[in-house]
């Protein structure tokens, strides 16, 4: 019985502690993917780098909170947030109706359209669902791009990959006829190495139903205080020029 009492007291103490922490947020754990260059990736020293990471650091500085980062596979990134492995996701996650059922989002912090990429010698010029019939198209799993392809390109063969890099590698290897992904990601990839194989084709895709309202920060439902803090910080770094500086570091064009 004594053991039970000890556990019960420890539990109460813990509840009191976390309750106190809730009142004034001082520490935020941020989940990100770490395999989505140039937005978030691990450098050669194994440290997280990229646009998302710089934005996150700027937001934390603005909010005057201490932030720690957790790298998490994309497939499990929302479940891990719900399991309280971290408090917010800053990982280029698009704000979509489907995801809003599970998590809350802040305002967007950037938007870039989705585009198709094909090998340079490809004869594909029309990327409509009808024209892509019978073609093999790749995308990263659990993404807006995967959902869009699965729902609208029913006559194409859709291949889904754990990371964007793997889909890119398979396009370069000739296993895919095309991939659909975020244009900023693809632009970065096509600058060097494998990526030289390929070119953009077709229009920008930004239908809100599938591609959402841009990338936002996801928090657990009901954590309005944290969400509001992020929203204020996003507005602040947009206004004070910090955002523009980070934007310029990665892209020659505005991504907001």
């Amino acid at each position, binding site marked *: 019985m004594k053991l039970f009492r000890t556990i019960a007291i420890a539990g109460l103490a813990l509840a009191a502690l976390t309750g106190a922490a809730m009142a004034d947020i001082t520490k935020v754990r941020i989940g990100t993917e770490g395999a989505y260059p140039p937005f978030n990736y691990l450098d050669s020293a194994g440290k997280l780098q990229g646009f998302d990471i710089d934005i996150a650091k700027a937001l934390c500085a603005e909010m005057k909170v201490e932030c720690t980062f957790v790298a998490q596979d994309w*497939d499990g990134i*929302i*479940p891990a947030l*719900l399991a309280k492995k971290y408090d917010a996701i800053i990982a280029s996650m698009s704000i979509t109706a*489907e995801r809003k059922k*599970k998590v809350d989002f802040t305002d967007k912090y950037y938007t870039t359209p989705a585009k198709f990429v094909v090998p340079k010698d490809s004869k594909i010029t029309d990327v409509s669902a009808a024209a892509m019939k019978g073609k093999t198209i*790749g995308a990263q*799993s*659990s993404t807006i791009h*995967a*959902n869009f392809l*699965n729902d609208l390109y029913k006559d194409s063969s859709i*291949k*889904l*990959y*754990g990371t964007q890099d*793997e889909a890119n*590698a*398979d396009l*370069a*290897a*000739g*296993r895919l006829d095309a991939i659909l992904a975020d244009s900023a990601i693809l632009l970065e990839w096509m600058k060097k190495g494998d990526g030289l194989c390929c070119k953009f084709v077709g229009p920008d895709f930004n239908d809100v139903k599938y591609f959402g309202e841009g990338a936002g920060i996801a928090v657990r439902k009901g954590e309005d205080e944290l969400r509001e803090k992020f929203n204020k910080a996003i507005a602040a770094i947009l206004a004070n020029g910090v955002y523009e500086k980070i934007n310029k570091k990665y892209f020659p064009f505005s991504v907001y």
Partner: protein
Amino acid sequence: MDFDLLIKYGPKLLSGLLVTLQLVSTSIVLGAIISLPIALMRLSKNRIINGIAYSYVYFFRGSPLLAQLFLIYYGAGQMRPLLQDMGIWWMFREAYYCAIFVFTLNTAAYQAEILRGSIQSVDKGQWEAAQTMGMKYWPTFFKIIMPQALISSLRPYGNEIILMIKGSAIASVVTIFDLMGETKLAFSRTFDFQVFLWAAVLYLVMVETLRITWEKMERRLTRHLRQVSDQ
């Protein structure tokens, strides 16, 4: 229980189950064919022949299946011009064939060891008895030794198939929609952990069916070894 989930994704899970069964059965059968010469090489007294077979088994048993699949799938992608010249790119282009290729080589290594162990476990007296009857080496091997070896390897074979069924979930990382692939897809649309539970149940059903079949098979094949009072 969420019946909407079952209605929407149940058929997909079942089609994934079919892919898993195809993958596993094809690999196990092809692996069994390859494993016989490897096992014989392992039994050889020639050190070079034995060494080659040993290295093969050592590599495939000593490294993770996931690493082997990645190596072949993405490695082949990088060596496409060479493979095209050799005329075998069509095989390495398809994730499905890559998975069968890797699974076959992997299970062949395990099966070869099972076979070698069970051949060695047959009593020396059986060889000697066959010899006194004037039987030659190969007829003795195939008609006297192998049938007895196969009986004692039945159980380890069953274990190997079970390991393959579970190991085949790895195919989902190279875009194959096997049971695990369909499960992950359903999860990514619903974020409902139930789909993993259903997938686990399906894996369990496969393994349990196999286990019961194996037990029946073993009882029947070893009936001559039992005492009358046991039956």
